């Protein structure tokens, strides 16, 4: 009996420490590809690994850098807007978040050659943004609540929402609301080299040092709007009479470091087509996580706050992303370039490791969950560009399909983007490109447990990108 009790206590302690812990969503955050940082590419739906003939080759296909024949300086900015229309218990709430960022600086230096090509480049790219938002509010008539879901932690006890034995009179039927704001980005410094190894066959490789940050600020409320809980939530403590509000704030901050490497091949059929192939080796992200919790319970004549130090935490761990293997082709039809590519990613290969302050078995379990929940996908990119030779003006269009990483998600959950862009050349040396991307997809989120307090999200995404390049 004593042994069984000890087992139970240990289990409670483990579960308590893991309530806000890392899970597959954290691994997905850094593993799903971003939209990159080149306006010409984005205008063509990022179907660019078979073109890549500028400084952005470091992001798309390092072999493409071998096609650059002039010294090139490139830079750009982008503006991102994320809109989330969230349905929660038949109420719809709109939210929005935006971010403006310098997304690209690159310097490309082709070595003079008598034959072939040898090119080096140094670049800074924003590979992905973490912009996101969520707002919801609705009355949950079920007999469940976040307070109840947290009974395996000390939070309800510390907020005087339970008796001395950890039991609560709260049994759902609360108005639940919340708002979340995400920000940050993944950036990388990349050193790239490319060579024409055989006539028209280019080989390139790069190594990147990653830096980045992610912040998620989530405020969650449960309100007794129907005045159901008039008694004492903590018997023997009269100030806990007439429960009004439960509030919990999670502030998650990541400082991200890491590295990765990529190799690429590009073969050119002069005047007609280019073929590209890239292998992105798994990216290793070192996450320095700072997790802060604040909480509060409000009663008719009193309120109680949590001790933030008790529930806040600082940990370190690694996330490894899957291989990304991509192939593409661009065909040149007298001024019209049509481009297509496919990228294979097996999200089951995502992995947590090297946790400091996190048990080994916890990450082992999470890695098992990743394998059970995720699936391999093939991303598709399509694009076209037409040049008006007389005026040095180009128009572009494209489409991006990023299937959901979750096994049983319907196609509504796939991320889809329509893109468009223009480009023009000034004095034969300054290229200016502008792109716009419109994305849409669905998502769901659970406040606790599974499908008892779920937000159904219709997301639209806008990105405007400007890239300028100077070749001399």
């Amino acid at each position, binding site marked *: 009996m004593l042994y069984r009790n000890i087992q139970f206590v240990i289990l409670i302690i483990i579960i308590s420490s893991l309530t806000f812990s890392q899970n597959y969503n954290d691994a997905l955050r850094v593993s799903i590809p971003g939209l990159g940082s080149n306006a010409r590419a984005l205008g063509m739906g990022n179907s660019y690994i078979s073109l890549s*003939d500028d400084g952005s080759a470091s992001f798309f296909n390092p072999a493409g850098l071998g*096609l650059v*024949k*002039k*010294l090139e300086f490139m830079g750009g900015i982008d503006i991102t807007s994320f809109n989330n229309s969230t349905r929660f218990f038949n109420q719809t709430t709109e939210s929005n978040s935006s971010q403006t960022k310098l997304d690209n600086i690159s310097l490309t230096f*082709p*070595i*003079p*050659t*008598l*034959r*072939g*090509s*040898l090119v080096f480049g140094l670049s800074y790219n924003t590979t992905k943004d973490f912009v996101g938002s969520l707002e919801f509010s609705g009355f949950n008539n079920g007999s469940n609540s976040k307070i109840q879901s947290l009974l395996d932690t000390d939070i309800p006890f510390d907020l005087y929402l339970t008796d001395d034995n950890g039991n609560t009179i709260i049994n759902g039927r609360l108005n639940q609301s919340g708002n979340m704001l995400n920000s940050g980005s993944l950036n990388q410094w990349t050193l790239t080299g490319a*060579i*024409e*190894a*055989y*006539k*028209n*066959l280019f*080989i390139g490789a790069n190594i990147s040092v990653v830096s980045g940050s992610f912040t998620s600020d989530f405020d969650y409320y449960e309100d007794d709007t129907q005045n159901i809980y008039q008694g004492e939530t903590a018997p023997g403590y009269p100030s806990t009479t007439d429960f009004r509000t439960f509030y919990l704030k999670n502030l998650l901050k990541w400082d991200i470091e890491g590295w990765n490497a990529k*190799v690429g091949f590009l073969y*050119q059929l*002069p*005047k007609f087509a*280019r073929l590209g192939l890239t*292998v992105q*080796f798994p990216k290793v992200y070192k996450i320095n996580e700072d997790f802060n919790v604040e909480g509060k319970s409000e009663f008719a004549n009193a309120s109680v706050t949590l001790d933030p130090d008790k529930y806040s935490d600082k940990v370190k761990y690694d996330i490894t992303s899957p*291989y990304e293997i991509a192939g593409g082709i661009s065909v*040149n039809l*007298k*001024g019209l370039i049509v481009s297509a590519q496919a990228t294979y990613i097996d999200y089951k290969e995502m992995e947590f490791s090297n946790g400091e302050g996190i048990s080994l078995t916890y990450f082992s379990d999470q890695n098992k969950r990743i394998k059970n929940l995720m699936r391999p996908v093939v991303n598709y990119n399509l694009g076209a560009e037409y*040049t*008006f*030779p*007389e*005026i*040095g003006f*180009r128009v572009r269009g494209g489409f991006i399909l990023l299937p959901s990483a979750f096994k049983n998600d319907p196609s509504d959950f796939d991320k889809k983007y329509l893109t468009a862009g223009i480009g023009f*050349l000034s004095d*034969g*040396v300054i*290229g200016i490109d502008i792109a716009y991307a419109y994305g849409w997809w669905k998502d769901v989120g659970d406040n606790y447990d599974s499908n008892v307090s779920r937000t159904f999200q219709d997301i639209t995404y806008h990105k405007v990108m400007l890239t300028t390049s100077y*070749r*001399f």
Partner: protein
Amino acid sequence: MKKLILMSAILFLSLQGCYTIIMTPEDKTPVYDNYYGFYPTDYYGSYGSYYEIPWWIINPIVTISDVKTTSRNSDTQSLRNNEGYRSDSGSRDGITTTPPPSRDNSSSTTTQKTNNSSGNEVRSNTGSGNSSGNSNSGSIRNENGNRNSGNSRR
């Protein structure tokens, strides 16, 4: 997987030999052959030269050891002596009225401004071929200069 790809790349290069030959300062600037041609000027206008013409052809690397360059150096030196004479003819800036070097009709102020020093003038003249195509080092460079400015193949 990683090792396999790296080994494949190394094996490929070692079997084939490397196609690329790096240019040294002693090498003559190669003739631009446009064999890549993914952006032919007919369909891509000025983007053709933007993507296709190497910078070392537009801005050629020149060495002073070249025999041809040495002879031109002496020609320019004689013109410089004449400039002193023309300066006396009433023009405030005698340099601008100096006839161009004998082989290059397109020589302009760029050439004349740089001919103050006999030791450096050849480099300066050659370097200015970027903008005006006035180098005597070969007609190919002049063609490239024109194409760069969009006059030739648009």
